[in-house]
């Protein structure tokens, strides 16, 4: 019963994230309309390097519009039946996150509403994503799929902050909470909860074996320095 409820909760959560990602992507069209400034842009003005900031914002929204739905897809159990698709989508997602999403997000964080606490919050989330992505790719390359899953859940948890923090903002506004305090809470709570959820709950659940997992115990940690002969070569083994 508990397991079934957990499964239902998980499905609703994933669906919510998917719908949220689509809503955000659709609403982001306003940043590409040349005739009118979006409210998010208006409240930031004047900016010291407006063109650079706008470019970073556009890169960020396009990268995020791809990355979050892609991460949701990659985390589906069904996707593990298609290891080649999983690998190639994973590579594309990893490249976009590391080359576009995180750098643009770090730049935007310097001008975040809420001052230093908000800047630190966004930057922390971005750094968790970058470190977890690199770590997750390395784990996949040495076929440590437990480590890979753990790392990629951190990536997904931080990307999902985009949806959860906006939901919290709307709820806190409806409750009449001061907007400045609400903004910081709606940022920090999902960032920290994401780390906690992955480390203290999700990774402790019984592991689901993937269809392309090697025939070794799932909990066996990968060697830190595998012998040269054991080391996978090229990008063919990257996540």
């Amino acid at each position, binding site marked *: 019963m508990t397991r079934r409820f957990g499964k239902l909760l998980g499905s609703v959560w994933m669906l919510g994230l998917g719908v949220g990602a689509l809503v955000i992507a659709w609403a982001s069209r306003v940043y590409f309309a040349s005739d009118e*400034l979006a*409210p*998010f842009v208006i409240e930031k003005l*004047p900016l010291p390097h407006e063109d650079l900031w706008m470019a970073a914002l556009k890169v960020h929204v396009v990268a995020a519009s791809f990355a979050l739905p892609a991460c949701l897809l990659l985390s589906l159990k069904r996707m593990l039946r298609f290891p080649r698709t999983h690998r190639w989508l994973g590579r594309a997602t990893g490249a976009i996150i590391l080359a576009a999403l995180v750098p643009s997000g770090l730049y935007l964080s310097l001008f975040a509403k809420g001052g230093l606490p908000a800047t630190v919050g966004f930057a922390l989330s971005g750094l968790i994503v970058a470190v977890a992505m690199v770590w997750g790719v390395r784990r996949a390359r040495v076929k440590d799929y437990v480590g890979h899953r753990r790392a990629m859940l951190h990536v997904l948890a931080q990307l999902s902050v985009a949806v959860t923090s906006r939901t919290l903002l709307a709820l806190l*506004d409806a409750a*009449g*909470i001061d*907007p400045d305090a609400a903004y910081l809470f709606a940022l920090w709570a999902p960032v920290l909860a994401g780390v906690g959820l992955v480390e203290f709950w999700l990774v402790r659940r019984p592991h689901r074996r993937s269809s392309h997992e090697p025939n070794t115990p799932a909990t066996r940690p990968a060697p830190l320095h595998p012998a040269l002969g054991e080391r996978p070569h090229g990008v063919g083994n990257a996540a």
Partner: protein
Amino acid sequence: MVEKQLIKPLADKEAHQSRFSRAYIPPQDRRVRVLESERSTDGRGAEFVTFAVDERSGGVGRRAAGDWRKDEIVGCVYPARDEVFVKRGGKYFAATLLLGKRTAAADDAVCRPARVAAADAHR
């Protein structure tokens, strides 16, 4: 004039604004306060009046009547020229900026009393 040129069009625009955004969530109420009873004169000899806009938010747990966030928007009005300016980051812009129209900062004399502008110039 502030109501007509800024508050009303802003509320109309915000009615179509996505709530699922990191941008500010539109307030439920706004009120305009005139900050000085007498008109000031800027460095170009034009008369203006300064104003502030307070905001109030909250749906389900709507705030008490007195709980306004003060000075969320500040600016000035030039009654003779039918112009409204708002202050952003130490500079003044045409109020249409808040409605989404790209606009350059107004010159330094705008919304600054002549004596203050002169004192600033001597610093």
